[in-house]
């Protein structure tokens, strides 16, 4: 990574931050965001369990957690498939 690349990257990030702050100060875009289901989660969450993170992961979005555990299975499978290829084969 040369010095010119680092300088360009830093300039891009700082320009983006400055422009977002400026537009928020002029046009007040913080009030145009739609809350959506966040009101339902905040109202009903704490009467199920005290930990809001676990309620969102395992109750409201439990289907995505099922996909996450399939990702873990696939990762282990691909590692054993690439590096293995019949070298280890004992069933104890």
């Amino acid at each position, binding site marked *: 990574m040369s010095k010119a690349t680092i300088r360009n990257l830093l300039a891009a990030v700082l320009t983006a931050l400055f422009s977002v702050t400026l537009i928020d100060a002029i046009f007040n875009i913080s009030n145009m965001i739609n809350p959506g289901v966040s009101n339902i989660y905040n109202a009903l969450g704490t009467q199920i*369990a005290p*930990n809001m993170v*676990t*309620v969102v992961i395992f109750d409201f979005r*439990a289907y995505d*957690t099922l996909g996450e*555990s399939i990702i873990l299975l696939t990762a282990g499978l691909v590692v054993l498939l690439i590096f293995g290829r019949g070298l*280890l084969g004992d069933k104890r």
Partner: protein
Amino acid sequence: MSQGSVILKLISLPISIILICLGIMTILGGHITPGGGFQGGAMIASGIILSILVYGIGNSPLELSHTYIEVLESVGALGFVIFGLIGLFVGGFFLYNVGADLLNVVPQSIQNVLHYPDVTNAGIIPYLNIFVGLKVFVGLTSIVIAFAGFKKLTEEGE
């Protein structure tokens, strides 16, 4: 590939046992404190990986056989799906929380059967934590066992 001095071999088994017990404690407190299934499963895996690294893959005290890894991974995935099917048949939606139902469609007898005996009323969340913890623990440990076995095989082949 064992790191074989006597001091390491003497202290690693008690520390591994305490790490496994701390991991089980983190899984079982998942619906109240930060933690839960994924984090507790990684802690249990780190306890077993410490024992494999210190002793070597041949004579480690905590060693998982092939059948054990297959059975535990299947139990973890199938348990999650079976709890989802219970929610489908009783509540009308896949992975519906049968313990704390928000639509009031579940009869009280089924709620009393699946109740985790606790002061909270969290439904199926503790059971899902346990199944995901088992699956993460077995997945991470099997990768480390495979790499240790490959290294030993290439060291013996030369």
